[in-house]
């Protein structure tokens, strides 16, 4: 009881004495958390988007002729010998026509004059849903183009490539901003606590002389780091949440963003970010104590 009373009062004194740099640190921590969390949020949403795209992402090989079952078997083997795939489907002329008609819906009348076999038969290949096979799309499609009887290979080439370059770039940015977060929190917190400690040399000397234990002297500083981490990361996440909702509201009209639901961090992820920030800041406050508070 008295322990926490004394510790909290000491903490209050520390904060009052160096409130300027305390505020700066808080801001820096918030900003680093905001930057990191922003990119991380974009990244996670991109991954979900990628998953969803992957669901209907397939390579289509258009064929000259409908393959006989024997040839189908052979093609199947050839394709699987190149790479594992999720699924291989053979689509006949008739099936292709049906699908197209279904897609047209009410406008299917336009097809009434067309022969039922005007669409070429094809093979649909659904690749495994992982980044590696998605990155190999280009090589894979070149291979498929050389299959006997293949007319043309189609997939959302540019689109897929750009998308995955972008996610890879994002993952690098996430890593960089994560490093930035770690460095700024540790160094800024260490710096302000160093300031506080240097500003109270006389008092710390005296405290040691009158028999203050290490815990008595250190706890306020550790608590200071803890608070910086807690408040800084909470502010950072809160501002990101506000920003997130603003963007959602602002761009809810355009079709592109409506294609799929953007989501904020789950409570677990938010909690993890806060806990990690607290750990980092507490670590930051521990470092100068080792150096300046030797007893």
């Amino acid at each position, binding site marked *: 009881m*008295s*322990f926490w*009373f*004394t510790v909290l009062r000491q903490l209050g004194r520390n904060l009052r004495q160096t409130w300027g740099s305390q505020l700066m640190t808080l801001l820096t921590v918030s900003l680093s958390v905001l930057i990191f969390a922003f990119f991380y949020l974009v990244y996670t949403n991109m991954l979900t988007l990628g998953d969803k795209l992957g669901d209907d992402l397939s390579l289509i090989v258009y064929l000259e002729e409908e393959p006989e079952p024997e040839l189908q078997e052979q093609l199947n083997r050839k394709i699987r010998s190149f790479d594992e795939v999720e699924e291989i489907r053979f689509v006949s002329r008739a099936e292709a026509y049906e699908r197209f008609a279904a897609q047209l819906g009410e406008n299917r009348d336009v097809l009434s004059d067309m022969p039922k076999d005007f669409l070429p038969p094809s093979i649909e290949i659904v690749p495994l849903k992982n980044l590696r096979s998605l990155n190999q799309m280009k090589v894979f499609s070149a291979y498929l183009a050389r299959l006997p009887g293949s007319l043309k290979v189609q997939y959302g080439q540019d689109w897929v490539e750009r998308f995955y370059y972008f996610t890879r770039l994002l993952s690098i940015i996430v890593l960089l901003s994560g490093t930035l977060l770690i460095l700024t929190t540790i160094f800024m917190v260490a710096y302000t606590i160093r300031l506080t400690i240097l500003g109270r040399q*006389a*008092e710390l*000397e*005296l*405290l*040691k*002389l*009158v*028999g*203050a*234990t*290490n815990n*008595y002297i250190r706890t306020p500083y550790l608590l200071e780091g803890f608070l910086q981490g807690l408040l800084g990361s909470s502010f950072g996440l809160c501002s990101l949440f506000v920003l997130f909702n603003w963007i959602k509201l602002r761009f809810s009209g355009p079709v592109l963003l409506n294609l799929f639901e953007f989501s904020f961090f789950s409570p677990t992820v938010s909690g993890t970010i806060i806990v990690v920030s607290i750990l980092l800041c507490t670590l930051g406050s521990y470092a100068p104590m080792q150096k300046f508070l030797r*007893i």
Partner: protein
Amino acid sequence: MNRQLHSPPMIELIKVSKQYPPDVVALKEVSLSIATGEMFFVIGRSGAGKTTLLKLICSMETPSNGLIEIAGQPIHQLKGRHRAKLRQRIGVAYQDFKLLIDRTTAENIAISMEVSYKKPQLIRKRVRSLLEQLDLADKHDSITGELSRGEQQRVTLARAIANSPAIILVDEPTGNLDAATTERVMNLLHKCNKSGATVVIATHDDSIYRDTSHRVLELRTGRLVNPVEEVSG
């Protein structure tokens, strides 16, 4: 004083020497035993080594040679928590005060009680009572940096005894005080001693030890002088 001589020593120095770098010998082979509950005067000219002796006893300085035991424990070999706990039981009124000059009188005195987590209301009561006894009642909320030296000296003393330590070390307690205030200070120290504290007073003010029944030892350039020799010399 027979009772005290039979109880185990509170402070025990065995052939203690202290040399400051590069080659200032402040104490030379001082052996000394102070009983629990004793009041003890260390006298000597300026530079004789009185302050050094007190600093060694409270473990602010380490001896170059020899052994110091406080309540049976070798204080300089204690580490961390144990040393801190022992220091909490030693109250020191430093010759240079060591006050936090940007804090109030009350805050300065409270520090020695706060480190052993005394209850805030207990601290408040004790601080008021001490200020009363030292004629500083109106200085409760004054910033110590703005007090006179005599007042600062008494605040230092109050801080030293606030936590009711087992050992009270006082360095020149009356240097800046008039006769009446000196008497107040000595009364307070006697009171502490009567309630069980071992009190060591370093001074060159002969008015406070002239008529005393307690032990008086003189330091002369770092050595203890036999009091009998002193009389005959």
